[in-house]
């Protein structure tokens, strides 16, 4: 089984994101592997360890993705490619999916694993659109994969009514949820090995396509501006006699907040 896993480099959402003039302030930000993709990588590596799958990884855009891809190598991914092109600057889910389609077609894969969404945009579309483009079956929100044979998987997904078990024929696309596994933490040995491994870097031409074919010029969606979420200021504390406080709070609600 040949697996293609996708990985997106995203901003660390543990950080405060500051917005200035409709754009994110890059200063002080740091970038990490999208958490859901990390689960996807772990899934692929487990399939490699348990069922002898071959694992390839692709990451699109993001400038220097070396650290992200090396981390995945250190987790156990065998080969990786990074596709970047100035034309991809404004890429949306459709464009990502088109690029992935090209990668898929060039590589004769049996299974695509993507994280079910990316931490930065929270769109959750790319994997599903890719399946549509490829005309392949897709299971989203996957929380477990069992290999039945070369061509068949038993996949469980978290659905509205509980866990759903789906029989899936390969080739197919799955998008995984964080609850599928605990991604391993790359250790020194893996990280050292990863440094020596090559990363295949390609632009759209090298991938055998072009900005036109992908549709880079006309993304279906576009981010116009970012806005900072409003900061909640701390509440007010009242101390003293219960009756007095009640009167004061009622007064404030009526006259200051004007909600009564």
């Amino acid at each position, binding site marked *: 089984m040949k697996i293609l896993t996708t990985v997106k480099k995203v901003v660390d959402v543990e950080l*405060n994101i500051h917005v200035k003039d409709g754009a994110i302030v890059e200063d002080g930000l740091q970038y990490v592997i999208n958490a859901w993709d990390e689960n996807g990588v772990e899934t692929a590596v487990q399939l490699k360890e348990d069922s002898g799958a071959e694992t390839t990884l692709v990451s699109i855009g993001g400038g220097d993705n070396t650290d992200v891809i090396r981390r995945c190598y250190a987790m156990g991914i065998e080969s990786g490619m990074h596709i970047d092109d100035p034309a991809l600057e404004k890429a949306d889910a459709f464009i990502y999916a088109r690029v992935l389609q090209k990668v898929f077609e060039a590589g004769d894969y049996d299974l695509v694993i993507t994280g079910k969404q990316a931490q930065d945009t929270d769109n959750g579309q790319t994997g599903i659109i890719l399946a549509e483009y490829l005309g392949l079956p897709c299971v989203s929100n996957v929380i477990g994969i069992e290999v039945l044979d070369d061509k068949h998987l038993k996949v469980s997904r978290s659905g509205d009514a509980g866990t759903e078990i789906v029989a899936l024929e390969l080739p197919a696309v799955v998008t995984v949820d964080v609850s599928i596994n605990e991604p391993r933490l790359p250790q020194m040995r893996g990280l050292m090995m990863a440094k020596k491994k090559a990363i295949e870097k390609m632009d759209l031409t090298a991938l055998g396509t072009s900005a036109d074919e992908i549709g880079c010029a006309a993304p279906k969606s576009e981010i116009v501006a970012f806005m900072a979420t409003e900061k909640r200021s701390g509440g007010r504390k009242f101390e003293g006699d219960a009756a007095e406080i009640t009167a004061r709070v009622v007064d404030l609600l009526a006259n200051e907040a004007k909600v009564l």
Partner: protein
Amino acid sequence: MNPIAMSLLLTVALGVFGRTMARKIQLLRALAPADRTNHLKQRLANMFVFAIGQKRLIGRARERSSGIMHALIFWGFCVLLIRSLTLYGQGFYEGFQLPWLGGGHLAGYLYLAVKDVMEGIVLLMVLYAVFRRAVLKPRRLHNTFEAYLVLALIGILMVSDLLLDGARYNLVHLYHNAKTIPFFNHPRYGSEFLWTPVAVGASALISGLGASANAAILATMFWLHICTQLVFLNILPLGKHFHVITALPNVFLKSLGYPHEKAQLLDLEDEAAWEDESLGVNHIHQLNWKQGLDLYTCTECGRCKEVCPTYTTDKPLNLYEFNDKLKHALLANADNIIRRSGLAAARARCGDDEQAAGLAEQMSALNSEKQLIGDIIAADTLWACTTCRACEEVCPVTIEHVPRIIAMRQGQTLMAEAYPKELNPALKGLERNGNPWGIGYDKRADWADGLGVQTMAADADVDYLFWVGCAGSFDDRAKKVSRSLVKILQRAGVRFAILGVEEKCTGDFARRVGNEMLFQMAAQENIATLNRYKVKKIITACPHCLNTLRHEYPQMGGNYEVIHHSEFIAQLVKTGRIELQPSLAGALAYHDPCYLGRYNEIFEQPRSILASVCQDAPRELPRHGRESFCCGAGGGRMWMEETIGKRINLERAEEIAGQNVAHVAVACPFCLTMIEDGMKELEKEELIKTRDIAELVAESMA
């Protein structure tokens, strides 16, 4: 006198003994290196205090009676050694005496008197020891045949020597053989028997048997004594009584400057080390020779396990067994270990790559088939340790358990990548955001909002850096301590700053769980930052930060004067820079944090501070000071679940609650969390408030 018999006996006994010892030493030499040859004076001092002075035996209130018993047997034995040499001499030459100890010198008489009384005392102590083992049965002790055998041999040594002297007395004074039996008789000091009341008492037991029987007893006791001693000597190296021989050198060679051997700064870039799997300890031959000597020396007294927070709360870490299993693994693999070290030396010498590879292969074939972690020591055992050092602090022969445990964790984490996966979130948080909580690094200084605290980045011209630590920066409870400390520093007019978002976890917990990579990464970054600001003096409220900054950063080129807030505040109070009102009502007890007390010897300062904020004198907990009981958070345990046995913090909270106090003071953010959680579990958090000393001081400032 029988020179032939004596020569024969000595040759055989010393020959066998020499062979055994040579083998034991050879095994130690085959282990990994350790440098213990510096600071001779201090080493000798340690030997006098701990080994000869028996400090940890008689110094512990909880164990005083058995401690005194052991010390008396030991000292008695030392005294008797001189007598034994005399007896060996007499085997060759009748009437032999050591120089200055003969009948012509007062010293000879004095020695006889001391020896005589000591023999009586040792005999009594042996009886007490048997009674204690057989009847009192202290929980920590393991009753073995060996223990009784050795007590019996000691008893025989005493009895035989006393009867020997008793028979001489009878022959000289009762049967008038003064001419043929040599004895001391000096015009000034009189007959030697005036000086030996115990032997004279023993003589009464055999006085009625007649002259020839007494002569026979004399001869028999002489040879019995000699033979027993030689048998004893040869039994020693075979079991736990090896400590009789190794305890002195073991104490002499103990770690200096820091309570135990510091975790090794591993060269993680060394590819050969990765190939040889020689980072950390994953095989028994990777222990260093001092650790081997530790194993030889363990007396199996069980003091360590008795004070261990994991053993007392029913976890699988039982240090007695831990040592015992390692010792057996060491001895069982002795041949291979010795052969292996020969091959290693050959490989180091050989210039030919192919030959070296062949040697390496032969070496790995000599590895023990049993996995050190898994087959010999269970993983749960290895990871249970909180690195609290309670065990080391009570060990009478100064055995160092924690460095071994950390080295094994290094081996597991680095080489086998086998460590509790529940640590991953904390390790990942450290890696990404420089704190085990994994909270964005940019929020590190949020606790100080509105306090007017300056950062080094804004102005580094200050006297002190306040090192806040991760807990003080991110944990809501500990943030209050940081704020209190700021209030104190500001009130005292101290010129200080923080690093703010430039501060990272010191890496303490990563190192304790064997993740040397993350420790070194964190340390490197921090040291670069500290050195960039030319920081000289650091104040911190976290004993873990204190310990790492003070003792471990120098390994990587970071040298600072690191001061715990308790030391600093005590100084502020003493110099009158802050004034405290003894206003706190209700009884208060102080819980000694392990990394403050046992690791850094800071016991007094927190107590003196507390004494000046409390209306009544602070109380001591049953387990306090050097023998304080861990809160359960050290050694990376803060970031692991505690699923086996009783929770350590609960055990401690119960101990505190049993003292009827209204407050418990701590001086560590992790103790704060653990003990407060314990109180919550007991539903006593309202009755017994857990507070850091900084909070109490800030509230008591006049």
